[in-house]
């Protein structure tokens, strides 16, 4: 039982089926401090990734690349660009392989995290999706079972959300409203929660 192109296809399919209500919620959240397009990014991104899964190659790296391209082809907002950055970083690390161990996933997430930090220029603690991912990486390291891994990730993402709600946003559009952002959930962090929960645990 390992992580293959099939796992990617499944994950995209499952999320795409529930992305509409998630998108609506995220648009609303993003509208409070930003430009209200985070949900649009998610919906268009997953719809487009879904439309290309049948053409995904067995090569895990190439499959992740194609997902990244499908994401960016329909969205260039920050979340879309960062998610594509993450997919490409993971793709580079798995290029030439057709399968990976589930236990490698936290390492791949770490590579994705590093790539997003260097691209976006944010730091941990700025109240972004990076803080959620950081919690997820820490909580899943050492776990080998996908179901167990998802539970740990889900809890970690929720805890991070709660931990940061009373802190100010320090980067991106929301930074302009730093004061106002205290007490509000960061839309990108909420997005991570919803994504983790929507991943099929198998």
């Amino acid at each position, binding site marked *: 039982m390992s992580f293959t192109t099939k796992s990617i296809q499944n994950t995209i399919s499952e999320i795409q089926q529930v992305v509409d209500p998630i998108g609506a919620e995220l648009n609303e959240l993003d509208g409070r401090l930003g430009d209200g397009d985070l949900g649009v990014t998610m919906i268009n991104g997953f719809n487009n990734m879904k439309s290309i899964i049948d053409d995904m190659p067995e090569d895990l790296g190439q499959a992740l690349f194609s997902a*990244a*391209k499908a994401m*960016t082809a329909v*969205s*260039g907002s920050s979340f*879309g*660009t960062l998610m594509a*950055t993450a997919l490409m970083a993971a793709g580079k690390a798995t290029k030439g392989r057709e399968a990976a161990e589930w236990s490698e996933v936290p390492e791949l997430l770490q590579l994705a995290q590093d790539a997003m930090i260097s691209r*976006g220029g944010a730091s941990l603690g700025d109240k972004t999706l990076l803080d959620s991912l950081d919690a997820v990486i820490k909580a899943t390291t050492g776990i080998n079972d996908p179901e167990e891994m998802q539970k740990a990730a889900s809890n970690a993402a929720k805890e991070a959300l709660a931990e940061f709600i009373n802190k100010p946003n320090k980067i991106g559009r929301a930074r302009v409203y730093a004061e106002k952002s205290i007490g509000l959930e960061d839309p990108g962090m909420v997005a991570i929660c919803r994504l983790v929960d929507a991943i099929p645990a198998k």
Partner: protein
Amino acid sequence: MKKLINNPDKYVDEVLEGMALTYPDIYAIGGATGRMLHRVTPAQDKVGVVSGGGFGHIPVFAGYIGEGFLDACAVGDVFASPDMNPMLESIKFADKGKGVLCIVANYGGDRMNFDMACEMAEMDDIEAIKVIVADDVASASKEEAKKRRGVAGFVYVSKIAGAAAAKGYTLSQVADVAQKASDNCRSIGVALSSCTVPQAGKPTFVIAEDEIEIGMGIHGEPGVGRSKIGTVDETVDKMLSHLLADRPAQAGDRMAILVNGLGGTPIEELYLILRRAKAQLEDVGVKLEHIRVGNYATSMEMAGASITLMQLDDELETLLTADAVCPFWEN
């Protein structure tokens, strides 16, 4: 909001349409979302040069498309970075197998999205690299010069890169000379009044009837100091002191100067700025080899101006004065 516009949500697209209708031989609208402007006649067999950035600064960015300038340009919303998609479209349009240089003003979204676009291009075997323009000395200290915003220096860097590409430079040569141009540019602006982003509907900032802000950014980012407005000679002297503190001028230095209007300031006043700046610079022995005065990098109806100095050497001067075909650059 007092503007000659229609629906604010359609502002950018309608203005682009108007630009393309005005210069049908030079600009064409392309891309899946109509947010790539490109040359009507693509160049052949040369390094591509592209850019992209927020709207509301015409001629920056897309206005500098033309022969000996940019091949294509991604267009964002007013004061907001374009998506990476039109950037990637621009790169693909401009690529003729010799690679593409992306000239990027130093704003977070522009950088990130161009990084992504370059990486995407690479997956399609297109070599695309970035050069960053960060010329606004008021936006960060000398030690943090890499964090500076890109302003009117963009015009020089685009001209230099475009001319180098037209002359047959390789990608790394174009990138090197563009980097040199960028390193040699210093700019500073002053604002007398705010502009209004159509979708916001009210002025971005407020400034008193007798005040001027030195160092204000082209989106209204805070500058280095607000004060009562003095004579234009006094204002120019302050601007120059910031520029020359950052990069002292030596007697014999050759420079280009760009006196740029922000959109709402009449050209009469820009000539007064040039007049004073020229006298002061020549006083310290600088030779102004190349002078431009006009609206080259604007903020819609913002009143104010900027001064850009670029240190010249033979290569930069040759490229700066090379022929180009662009509505916003006279040869």
